[in-house]
């Protein structure tokens, strides 16, 4: 096996050095009744060439191919990824290094993550961002747990039903054993969250909204921030599509205390939902309650600028059971990738790309409305929107699939009240021709 460098002679010589007669003798400390019986029942080894063939067979069973237009978002977004992002993020010095515990050997990772933290804080309009969490969903759970630490004597959190359904499930998983109560907030006909059930609720730590939300609608975060702060709680602004902040006001500007969400849109492939990137930022005053790793600037013995992991007294390996989170490895390379993407795009590029998403998305939305569809919600959207059709959309969708277009997902599985409503997503990857095809298929 090419990954195992030992020759039989070397094995024999090394065994002699350690005073063992065979490889088996190295394991005499393992009692007989703990032993593995027989050979491991996994398939026999494949050569590199056989593995390539197998992968060709497996990838051939995927019915959606890269040249398809997938007009589906709902938490994962198909954006252009420039070759330099793949190329730089694939450099083995980044890929094959460990968490930067020895800063003198990891200044590349450390400066790269410091830059990621900075660009993330600027994107989200907040003071501090961490080095990443697992994904948008667990980041939201961590944000609510952080809210419960920050707001003294609190025991409840609220979360909008317009937050991605899978995110709400993850929040429930994380909070179940803690005994804290989760209040679900409804949404109105504009697709925006209705905060009125919070009136009179005490012990509230934080309220989680998502903007753009699951239906693509922009929440009125500024108004929500005022109301939520008046009740003594924190506003947690979640997101699944950070590209929106190239166009719309960012969460910090709107008054959010914590912004957290999924960073996949920033240079990471959809890849069946992972590897993902949990982005997390907050106001300066809460930094010591933050979960996850942080990189900080310092100097070396000669006074030169350098970077280290810092504020680790919040973390599991120091504070053990009193840590702000149990997180250890996070999504380092995904954060680095997002930073490379943001650097490639630049401020102007992000704005232009976001605008392109919006214009194309509005073009499809208005085209379909003109063709007879009805918007489910009236509020402003970014690159996703929900529509209801006069007839059954399923056969239309099947026909479009035959033309290489995957148009939307049905909402009934997630919101039974909205059975027959479809959620579409249009990014800069879509072309006018593709969108015209969808519109004319609906028009019939």
């Amino acid at each position: 096996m090419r990954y195992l460098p030992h020759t039989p002679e070397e094995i024999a010589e090394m065994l002699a050095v350690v005073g063992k007669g065979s490889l088996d003798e190295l394991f005499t400390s393992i009692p007989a009744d703990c032993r593995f019986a027989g050979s491991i029942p996994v398939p026999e080894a494949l050569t590199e060439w056989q593995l390539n063939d197998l992968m060709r067979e497996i990838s051939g069973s995927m019915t959606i191919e890269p040249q398809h237009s997938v007009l589906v978002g709902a938490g994962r977004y198909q954006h252009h990824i420039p070759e330099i992002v793949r190329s730089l993020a694939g450099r083995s010095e980044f890929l094959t290094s460990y968490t930067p515990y020895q800063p003198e050997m990891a200044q590349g990772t450390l400066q790269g993550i410091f830059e990621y933290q900075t660009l993330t804080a600027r994107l989200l309009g907040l003071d501090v961002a961490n080095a990443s969490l697992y994904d948008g969903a667990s980041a939201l759970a961590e944000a609510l747990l952080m809210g419960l630490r920050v707001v003294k004597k609190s025991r409840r959190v609220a979360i909008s039903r317009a937050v991605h359904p899978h995110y709400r499930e993850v929040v429930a998983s994380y909070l179940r054993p803690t005994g804290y109560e989760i209040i679900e907030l409804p949404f109105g006909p504009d697709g925006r969250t209705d905060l009125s059930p919070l009136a009179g609720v005490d012990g509230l730590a934080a309220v989680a909204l998502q903007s753009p939300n699951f239906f693509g609608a922009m929440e009125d975060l500024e108004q929500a921030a005022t109301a939520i702060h008046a009740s003594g709680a924190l506003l947690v602004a979640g997101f699944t599509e950070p590209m929106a902040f190239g166009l719309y006001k960012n969460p910090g500007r709107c008054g959010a205390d914590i912004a957290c969400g999924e960073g996949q849109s920033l240079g990471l492939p959809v890849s069946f939902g992972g590897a993902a990137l949990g982005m997390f930022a907050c106001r300066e005053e809460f930094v010591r309650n933050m979960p996850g790793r942080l990189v900080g600037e310092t100097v070396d013995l000669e006074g030169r600028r350098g970077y280290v992991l810092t504020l680790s007294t919040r973390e599991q390996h120091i504070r053990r059971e009193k840590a702000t989170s149990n997180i250890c490895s996070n999504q380092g390379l995904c954060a680095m990738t997002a930073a490379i993407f943001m650097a490639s795009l630049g401020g102007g590029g992000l704005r232009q790309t976001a605008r392109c998403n919006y214009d194309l998305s509005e073009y499809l939305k208005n085209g379909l409305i003109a063709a007879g569809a009805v918007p489910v919600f009236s509020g402003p959207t970014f690159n996703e929107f929900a529509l209801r059709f006069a007839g059954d959309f399923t056969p239309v969708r099947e026909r479009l699939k035959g033309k290489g277009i995957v148009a939307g997902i049905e909402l009934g599985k997630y919101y039974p009240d909205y059975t027959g409503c479809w959620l579409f997503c249009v990014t800069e990857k879509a072309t006018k021709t593709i969108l015209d095809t969808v519109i004319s298929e609906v028009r019939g």
Partner: protein
Amino acid sequence: MNGTVGASGLILNEPLLWEKGRKGRRGMSMVESGVPPAPIDAGLCDEGPDFPDLSEIDVIRHYTRLSQWNFGIDSGMYPLGSCTMKYNPKINERMAATPEIACAHPMLDDASSQGVLRIMFELQQFLAVITGMDAVSLQPSAGAQGELAGMLIFAAWFRSRGEKRTKILIPDTAHGTNPASAALCGFTPVPLKSGDDGRLAVETVAALMDGETAGIMLTNPNTLGIFESNIRAIAEAVHARGGLVYGDGANMNAIMGIADPRKCGVDVLHLNLHKTFSTPHGGGGPGAGPVCVVQALEQFLPAPRVIRDDSGYRLADGGPSSIGRLHAFHGNFSVLVRAWSYIRSMGPEDLKKASQLAVLNANYVKERLKGTLHLPYDQPSLHECVFSDQFQHDHGIRTLDMAKRLIDYGYHPPTVYFPLVVPGAIMIEPTETECRDDLDQFVEAFKAVVQEAADTPDLLLQAPVRAKLRRLDETRAARHPCLCG
């Protein structure tokens, strides 16, 4: 230092991203929408973030220079104990980047996703048979989230039985994440002291295991690299009081095809695919921490999981007992593809061989450094060995100083000051992918450092001198946090 791999490279300086660039530059192609601009409510809009504008070559040089300040497994030996820094095969990267796989959208139906579901299904099976467990969820994104899943399963199990247990036993040789994961699930950690031989005694466990204790979190082999040979009796003592046994499988690399966690009495086990199964660490993730359980606990696993029926592979939602989702989709899927690729490339014989050689390498290094460095637990050990700096105290030299000097010799230092049971610990895990010549070179380098500790200790106190930067002021970083530029 003649003949060592350590040297000063051609290291170029590079400013922060926003200290370079010019407004109006672009590092990527811009798309024209081709449709008319749509009206938008200006009140909701902003001018966009203050990012630097850079050209493609600006970005390329920036990150190329940064990468050259980093040390990876591809650069050299990385004997970081407990982290299993083995070679990360290149073909695995290609597998994960397969275009049809990389573009698979997780919100589409199962019929569209057969290939990716097959990979997940097969990996679930492989991990089950390697650990001897009955069922596997691939959802946890890292070891610590796998532990969290395990603790949530513990909590759900006792809830389903109408029991309230509030404590959990954690030995002093456990991983640092264990207590934090348990605490998140409402269990108060009860520390257990390991014996003089580095092993946990049955009596220690039996004395503390009571009806309010949920069970035990055990790393086996433990963080001293020692197999907990009493594990079956320990598991029986825990089971006898209605408790469960959690196995931290971070050290699975030592025992593939050799020991069977199921037979050891483990009920729940997490694996670190970024350790045992060769997926890259990426400078701190993404990893993957699948959680494996015995049949009685299968109903509690995170959902969805992949099953196979007449119609092919499909995602099955969890029943009412499931602890629910831990990830928006299926964990770090691209990492799962790499681990699948590794197992398919290795096959049964070479997986076992990997463990055997990992243990051979660690024993070889232990034997060759014994005497040079203090070995606090001179016991049969497996994939890693733990020394201390006790012999160097007379020279005023500590573990950290030796670690930093190793950098000058071209090695990533071992894990230091862990496990906590060994003061000044130096924890070495060479892994199976280092050849004898490289181990010899590492041993010679370490011996040279130890010699310098006696002869010229100042060299160590000043180290590193060949890295891009000298020692960094971590106290200043923590006292006056500058987290954002």
